């Protein structure tokens, strides 16, 4: 009895101690955060008038002289410039971008880039990505970080490399990222869009260089399919025949349902009439998803010759294919009664449901 009370007192004291420790550390964190926010605000207030003066008078020396070397000062300054850059354009935007090249800012970020702290390295990568400035020294470091076990650093380094004018370097960065299976779809798509420059005359060169990424055998089929979708979205039209060849005779790396679907859709998006014959060969593919994609594309670009085959697919064992066939037939003005007439009693309910769905969607589309 005495021992149990003794133990209870000890446990209570330990719990009380832990609660106090948590309480004190919570207060400490809050105070530290408040101090951090106050410091940022102070630097912001100090820097902002000089940035505004610079925008009017154009004297960058005035801004340069304000830096005292404090880390937060650079942070506050960058925040001002990037926030403004997101809201203004024209002459002011041009001048703001020039501010990011000031020697103290550049030197500060180079120090961050070669530091041992991954958080600082990521910050530096983000800066070099914003200013799209990558020289030999920086490239060497960024390429080194492409092999880091820290995914965030790898992605930031690859993003910064997208600022390079050298298309092969951008392809190399894209390949390094695409080989990693843990990378998210969103990150990969974002990077791909950064790979694409705004210059129209670069489209052909970039398209040609992208073949190296698509041909890389270490890239997963999901990532290859994602690249094909991005290629379609951005509009690398010069890759359409290359992709069609891959659809015609897919090698092992290209013969995955998700890649085939992305490629079939790409042909449709690029309005490639030449692909119709090849897409028809996928109407009896073993993957119902591939068959559905082929039916959907042929319903847009095929001919009346495809209609009997669509009717035949109404009896397919997979509902996705049945649905695609119903939609394709209705889209090609086949009467709903004719469609329902084609199917056996057992499929009647399913097919009628898809007919109704199509008609509802079509009505909604017309109303909107």
């Amino acid at each position, binding site marked *: 009895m005495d021992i149990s009370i003794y133990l209870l007192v000890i446990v209570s004291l330990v719990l009380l101690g832990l609660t106090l420790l948590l309480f004190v550390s919570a207060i400490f964190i809050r105070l530290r955060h408040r101090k951090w926010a106050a410091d940022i605000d102070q630097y912001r207030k100090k820097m902002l008038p000089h940035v505004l003066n610079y*925008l*009017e008078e154009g004297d960058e020396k005035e801004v340069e002289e304000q830096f005292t070397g404090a880390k937060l000062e650079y942070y506050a300054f960058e925040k001002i410039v990037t*926030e403004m850059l997101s*809201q203004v*354009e024209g002459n*002011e935007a041009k001048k703001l971008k020039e501010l990011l090249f000031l020697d103290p800012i550049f030197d500060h970020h180079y120090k961050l880039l070669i530091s041992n702290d991954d958080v600082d390295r990521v910050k530096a990568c983000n800066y070099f990505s914003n200013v799209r400035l990558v020289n030999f020294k920086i490239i060497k470091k960024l390429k080194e970080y492409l092999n880091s076990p820290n995914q965030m650093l790898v992605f930031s380094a690859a993003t910064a490399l997208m600022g390079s004018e050298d298309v092969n370097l951008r392809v190399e960065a894209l390949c390094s990222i695409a080989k990693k299976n843990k990378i998210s779809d969103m990150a990969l798509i974002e990077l791909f869009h950064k790979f694409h420059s705004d210059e129209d005359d670069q489209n052909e060169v970039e398209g040609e260089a992208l073949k190296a990424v698509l041909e890389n055998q270490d890239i997963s089929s999901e990532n290859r399919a994602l690249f094909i979708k991005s290629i379609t979205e951005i509009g690398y039209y010069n890759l359409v025949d290359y992709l069609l060849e891959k659809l015609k005779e897919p090698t092992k790396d290209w013969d995955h349902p998700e890649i085939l679907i992305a490629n079939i859709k790409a042909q449709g998006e690029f309005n490639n009439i030449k692909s119709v014959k090849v897409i028809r060969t996928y109407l009896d593919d073993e993957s119902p998803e591939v068959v559905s994609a082929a039916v959907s594309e042929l319903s847009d670009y095929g001919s009346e010759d495809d209609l009997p085959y669509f009717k035949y697919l109404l009896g397919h064992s997979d509902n996705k294919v049945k649905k695609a066939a119903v939609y394709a037939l209705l889209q090609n003005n086949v009467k709903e009664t004719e469609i329902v007439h084609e199917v056996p009693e057992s499929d009647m309910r399913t097919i009628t449901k898809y007919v109704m769905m199509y008609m509802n969607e079509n009505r909604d589309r017309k109303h909107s």
Partner: protein
Amino acid sequence: MSDDSPLILVVEDTEVIYELLLYKLKKSGYRVEHRANGKEGLEAAKELQPDLVLLDVMLPSMNGFEVLRNMKEDTATKDIKVIMLTSKNREEDIMKGHKLGAERYIEKPFKPNILMLRIEEVLGS
């Protein structure tokens, strides 16, 4: 800056942007007042009777359209000219602002010098 120079009320909540606008407007010789949310912006419009309101759409407490609607329904503020700052590619925002009676719409990101020209145009009309 003289007391009879036009008074412009800037209703905008992004600090760097209102600081930029205030700086440029003052440099151009206007008297300037600033409010960072819709409700205070509407009250200031009634109280100060500015010559022009530069009104952002995305505002805390009351959005720019509500401010504009309230201004146009109130006899004390219905004649005050308004330039709206809207996000790019928001056609519906522009149409809405037009119906509610804004004089001009400037899309963000904007060119500050073009905005100054529009302000001159609106105040001169």
